[in-house]
């Protein structure tokens, strides 16, 4: 009997005690690849959100009181003053007021497209691009704006984003915990299968020992078998998962394009990470089987 080019003196190939191993490892690799892919996608989203907002902030200027024309003129003057202050502030790359059309577009999802928006005293928004990593001192900038422009306030998006990122990281941590638990469960399964196999083949193991086989000679045969079975199960689990990951990417690309979640497809390196999972499961099974055999034999004569 030859496994991976190495002979097996133990009758493990027809061993009923380990036949179930691929069917247990397949769902484990399936769950593991879901968790891993989810983690990678989530970290990608967090990174994108972080990048998107780390270089920007928004200055809001409340609409000036008075009739529509007076309010509009005074608000425009405040905006120009705020832009001057922003432009003179170190760390600010660009400050640009949003046009009335852009404001209307932002409010359209809530209020619809109506000419009424033009007559409403809407606050003015200034989109500010700041130097990533070398941004302005926000407290000082806020104080200057507050003093020079009545009704101006700064929103750097970080309060709501930090909560969202915190939640996302907790979910990602949970996914990593799931991967660790699955790895532990896989190891426990392999330990059980290996010990059962050793009990079944005790007489053969005794003969091999008496002939002069080392513990490692015997352990390698169990390890090769565990590797082979775990690889089969792992590949099966991965094959089951490919349509799901592919579908998620397709859904993200075609249904949520431009939305808040952005692209949900797995990046190339993520695919490699998921593709490596069956081999990782097989190596884990091989290592576990080998260590189990060594530990068990050490307790024998």
């Amino acid at each position, binding site marked *: 009997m030859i496994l991976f080019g190495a002979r097996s003196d133990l009758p493990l190939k027809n061993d009923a005690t380990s036949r179930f191993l691929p069917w247990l490892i397949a769902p484990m690799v399936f769950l593991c690849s879901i968790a891993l892919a989810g983690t990678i996608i989530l970290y990608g989203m967090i990174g994108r959100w972080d990048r998107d907002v780390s270089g920007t902030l928004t200055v809001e200027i409340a609409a000036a009181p008075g009739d529509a024309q007076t309010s509009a003129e005074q608000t425009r003057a405040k905006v120009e003053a705020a832009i001057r202050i922003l432009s003179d502030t170190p760390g600010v790359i660009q400050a640009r007021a949003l046009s009335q059309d852009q404001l209307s577009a932002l409010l359209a999802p809530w209020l619809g497209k109506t000419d009424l928006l033009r007559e409403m005293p809407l606050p003015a928004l200034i989109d500010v691009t700041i130097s990533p990593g070398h941004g302005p001192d926000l407290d000082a900038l806020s104080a200057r704006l507050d003093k020079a422009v009545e009704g101006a306030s700064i929103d750097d998006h970080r309060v709501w984003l930090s909560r969202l990122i915190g939640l996302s990281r907790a979910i990602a941590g949970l996914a990593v915990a799931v991967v660790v638990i699955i790895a532990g469960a896989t190891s426990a399964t392999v330990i059980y299968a290996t010990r059962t196999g050793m009990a079944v083949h005790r007489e053969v193991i005794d003969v091999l020992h008496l002939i*002069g086989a080392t513990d490692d000679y015997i352990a390698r045969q169990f390890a090769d078998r565990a590797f082979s079975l775990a690889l089969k199960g792992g590949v099966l689990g991965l094959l089951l998962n490919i349509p799901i990951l592919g579908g998620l990417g397709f859904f993200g690309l075609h249904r949520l394009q431009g939305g808040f979640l952005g692209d949900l497809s797995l990046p190339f390196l993520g695919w490699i990470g998921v593709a490596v999972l069956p081999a990782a499961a097989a190596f884990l099974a091989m290592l576990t089987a080998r260590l189990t055999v060594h530990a068990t034999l050490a307790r024998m004569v």
Partner: protein
Amino acid sequence: MGRKTPNHGNVVQFDSVGLRYDHGPEILQDINFALPAGSFHFLTGPSGAGKSSLLRLIYLAQKPSRGRVTLFGRDTLLARRYELPALRRRVGVVFQEFKLLDHLSTLDNVALPLRVAGAGEAEVQKFVPDLLDWVGLSEHIHAKPPTLSGGQKQRVAIARAVIARPDLLLADEPTGNVDDDIAMRLMYLFEELNKLGTTVLVATHNQSLISRLQHPRLHLENGALLGPEP
């Protein structure tokens, strides 16, 4: 294959060895003897005298309850676990119950000692078929033990014990299932190995063999050793 022991000193030495299983009576009592390198001895005695137990002590399947067993100059009680495979590889054993692996072919059973010693397939194919031919089993090279007769299994067990040219050959009733002609042929094989330097200890009831081959005897009686007798 095996390293040859220099033709001096003792391959096996028992000093005041006693053996009991659990809390039962002593199976072996105060056993003292030595097998010089290159010697050939018979081990005789009635059934239940302790012959197989004595052999088990030598091939390291059992530890003595008391006393000291020395194998190739190494006190077996002091030997670490990782040292045992190397010691066992220097010992060829023909087990009374054969201990063949039923799922392996005759060739693979006989090749086991070579493979556990790290020999390649070329070496296996070079030596095993020749030896199987010599013991009259060339037609059964791919047969598995359950399909072989008792005598054929015994010859497979003997072939496995000698294939690696061990320094010490232990045989527990090696001719119990074969007729006299084959028994003599197998004993000549043992003698040939002995001439090449292998120390041989054969446990047997076969008085005909003992009287024809004229080797010294170790006689066990109720767990006590009488002899060696010429």
